[in-house]
């Protein structure tokens, strides 16, 4: 499955195999992680909520658009949800191409699109309370 929402951690080697063929010369991977700091607050954990069916459909649309827009060979887009601790993986985008240029461009573009379009929301559990992240805004959650 090349586009997935999942609770379990990523098997990156498996994602690489999914996009590799004998024609592949370069693979670019973006791996997002939960970091311990956000806007000056000490982060303990992220809770990702998703509109799962739509999220998968939107990732599939992004993958399809990437394959049309860039001369790449293949792409994997995986996103995790649920409770994720500092250091855990959150998102994985893998783009394979004959050459590296297009793989870099497609990977970067797809990560941006996922962050802009895929219905997933982050709640940051910090030392100063819990905040919903909505685009650039942070809103205190009860």
């Amino acid at each position, binding site marked *: 499955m090349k586009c997935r929402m999942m609770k379990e951690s990523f098997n990156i080697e498996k994602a690489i195999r999914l996009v590799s063929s004998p024609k592949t010369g370069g693979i670019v991977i973006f791996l*997002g992680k939960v970091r311990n700091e956000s806007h000056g607050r000490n982060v303990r954990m992220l809770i*990702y*909520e*998703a*509109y799962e*069916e*739509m*999220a998968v*459909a*939107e990732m599939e649309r992004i993958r399809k658009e990437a394959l049309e827009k860039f001369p790449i060979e293949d792409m994997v887009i995986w*996103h995790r949800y649920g409770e994720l601790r500092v250091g855990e993986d*959150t*998102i994985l985008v893998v783009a394979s191409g004959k050459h590296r240029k297009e793989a870099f461009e497609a990977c970067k573009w797809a*990560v941006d699109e*996922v*962050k*802009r*379009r*895929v*219905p*997933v*929301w*982050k*709640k940051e559990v910090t030392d100063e309370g819990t905040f*919903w*992240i*909505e*685009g650039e*805004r942070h*809103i205190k*959650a*009860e």
Partner: protein
Amino acid sequence: MRIRVRYFARFRSLVGTGEEELDVPEGITVGALLNILKERHPELKSEVFAQNEDADVNVSKNGRYVSFDEPLSEGDIVALFPPVSGG
């Protein structure tokens, strides 16, 4: 006609439910539905429901983003949610 409305993330907390069914006039648009929902859930009134950069609502119909002038049909699933923050 009958449609389903789903709420996600902070909107789900605000409204207090993740999903509801509603009877709405035949051929109603997404924009008109939003007005009905604001009446039904006063806690949504302070949210900026607009189609521009300042908007803090996204609307999808059957799993696809739609604009406010999108017409609805029997059985459609409409979802309301804040700006996304995946990745």
